[in-house]
């Protein structure tokens, strides 16, 4: 009976998805990025119509090439019959990974956006163009807003695939709940809540048709405006001090960090390493191969019982010198510039290195790689690293100052 009932339920579900697809597939659209010189498409994605005037919502990461290299790339809407129509980017929200395009396609039905809050476990349907295979519908389950993230994200249990980015996820009434944005595989997928798109659309509509198109300058501005709130939270109420070997160090710098630890105990080696690491889970997509906004805190304890002092310090030096800075591309960032000092806070004498690099095209934004190595024992050492990306100089010095002052002996 249960099996039969289940089968019947599945049939009903299938029917529901078919019905929704038939009704709403035309609301969504394929978007492609074309390399101007060769005329070949360099990226594909999805989007959906949201006004009668041809406004389309999609992800920033779908159209990022157009913002980064407007001279080389343009965006196009691909009609169901395969013909293409030019589209211009009229508004971006790089932090939440959204963009609004304006096309001259006026004959398509569109989703009127409104605030929707689904129930936990509610069935949702994602529309999009997975791997450029054609418009598809995927059923999934609403699992609430992610906790502990910097940027609001809906957790959807559904197999969203590359190419579906920018497509809408709708409820059974056909209301847009969120915009497909990312997947972690195994049916774990993420949506940008619809309220972010509503806000961005308002910006696009209010700026008028003659407004300047968004540029990298605006990307930099949005990144600077966004960060003050979360930087204020760091090393605040949620931060905890923990015992780490003979040291006390800070962990869980803010609620939006995830922390974990691990140790390596290899019988072959005359020393041990213990790590404690906290990172933000989400970063901001800027361009192919370039993200920003991730923050990492890393404590590493090196201990030995058998190495003599010079041997231990040779090991400690190499641990301290091992690179754990964020990666970067020449097009986007400068070389690292470092300042090294021996520093003493209230408790610990340490070697401290601050390396900075600047974003080339986003105005005054920097990445920082701050490393500390505590001095004073020849059987145990602490290397603490704070990696900050896409911050203003004020913010990163503020955080660095706090970070250096918190290290102490137990």
């Amino acid at each position, binding site marked *: 009976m249960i099996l039969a009932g289940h089968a019947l339920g599945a049939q009903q579900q299938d029917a529901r998805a078919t019905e929704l697809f038939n009704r709403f597939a035309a609301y969504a659209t394929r978007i492609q990025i074309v390399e101007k010189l060769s005329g070949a498409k360099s990226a594909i994605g999805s989007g959906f119509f949201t006004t009668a005037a041809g406004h389309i919502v999609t992800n920033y990461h779908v159209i990022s090439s157009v913002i980064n290299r407007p001279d080389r790339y343009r965006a196009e809407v691909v009609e169901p019959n395969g013909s293409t129509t030019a589209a211009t980017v009229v508004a971006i929200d790089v932090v939440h990974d959204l963009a609004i395009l304006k096309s001259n396609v006026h004959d398509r039905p569109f989703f009127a956006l409104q605030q929707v809050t689904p129930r936990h476990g509610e069935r949702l349907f994602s529309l999009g163009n997975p791997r450029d295979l054609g418009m598809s519908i995927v059923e999934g389950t609403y699992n609430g807003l992610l906790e502990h993230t910097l940027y609001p994200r809906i957790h959807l249990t559904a197999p969203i695939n590359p190419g579906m980015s920018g497509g809408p996820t709708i409820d059974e009434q056909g209301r847009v709940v969120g915009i497909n944005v990312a997947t972690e595989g195994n049916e774990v997928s993420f949506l940008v809540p619809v309220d972010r798109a509503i806000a961005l659309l308002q910006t696009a509509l209010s700026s008028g048709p003659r407004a300047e198109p968004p540029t990298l300058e605006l990307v930099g501005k949005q990144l600077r405006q966004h960060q003050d709130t979360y930087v204020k939270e760091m090393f605040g109420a949620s931060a905890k001090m923990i015992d780490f070997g003979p040291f006390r160090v800070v962990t869980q710098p803010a609620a939006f960090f995830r922390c974990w630890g691990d140790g390596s105990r290899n019988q072959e080696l005359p020393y041990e390493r213990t790590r404690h690491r906290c990172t933000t889970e989400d970063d901001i997509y800027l361009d192919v191969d370039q993200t920003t906004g991730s923050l990492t805190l890393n404590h590493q304890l090196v201990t030995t019982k058998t190495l003599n002092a010079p*041997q231990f310090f040779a090991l400690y030096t190499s641990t*301290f010198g091992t690179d754990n800075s964020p990666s970067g*591309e020449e097009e986007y960032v400068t070389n690292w510039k470092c300042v090294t000092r021996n520093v003493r806070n209230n408790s610990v004498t340490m070697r401290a290195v601050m390396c900075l690099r600047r974003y080339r095209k986003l105005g005054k934004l920097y990445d920082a790689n701050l490393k500390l190595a505590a001095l004073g024992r020849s059987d145990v050492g602490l290397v603490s690293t704070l990696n900050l990306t896409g911050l203003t100089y004020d913010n990163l010095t503020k955080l660095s100052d706090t970070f250096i002052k918190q290290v102490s002996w137990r």
Partner: protein
Amino acid sequence: MALILEIRDRRGATTWHSLNRPLTVGRGLSNDIILDDPYVDARHAHILLDDFGALTVQDLGSVNGLLTNGVRAPTAIVVQPGTELRIGRSTLRFRDSDEAVPPALVDASHRAPLATRWMFTDRGSLVLVAAATGLAALMTWLGTSERSAAASVIGAVLAALVLMSLWAGVWAIALRGAERRFQMRGHLAVTAAAVIVIALATTLTDWLQFFFPDTAPPSLAFSAVVLLTLSALIAGHLTVAGALSKRRRWQVGLGVSATLFVGGMLIGLAQDEKFSDVPKFPAQLKPVSPRIVPTQTVDQFVKAMAKARDEADKAANP
């Protein structure tokens, strides 16, 4: 013009003979020139003027014969200045008595510092090579963090010995001169001394960079030490070979090392401008009491970060 016969026997000893009368060469004691060489016949060769008045060497039916350029020669060879013949394991070389020789060098060895003279004695060179090898072993041992350091220490000792011998060997061969004196021991002593100086300078720079991370002079001073050591090394090799005057040796040494140095600096500059997403900084940590380490306050350090920011700004907007 008269020809002089230069004989270099299998032990490297050289003798000169004038050729104003016919001479016999062989191992037998009745010969005019006696070669103590088991590969030479009792009566091996005869040197005489032939019917046309040309100086000729005749093989007297010996077992191993006479070799020119490694090939067994016909029984009679007409020789000229510069002709070289091999007889057994010895070499016969015919030289013009009017051949120009370089001017005499000023002998300053009695004025050379005691240390320099000691360096080239048997004991001195042995001590230097042992010290350089020992230093390599010590530095490897102190730098290792493996459970058993023996393998890497032995490896370092072997590497040090092989590399020093190779370097000294190249100089010995290149500067052996007309007399074929290799002077390997002297070249090894010079090489070992340079290795010791560089090792000590490296260690000292490392410590200075640890204590004073924000000052450039340690690396500048280190460069100067390397430059001087390299010059001294080259001058030293030339001294061992007895080539050139003292002033010229140093000129050559400084010239060569300065050229290498400028080349290296240009390569360094070019690489500095290359993009890399790996930061470079002096990471030295040393096992000393924190009390003797000069430190800054956190606030001073945070203020100093502006220097990195300014450099990054400059790199972004050149």
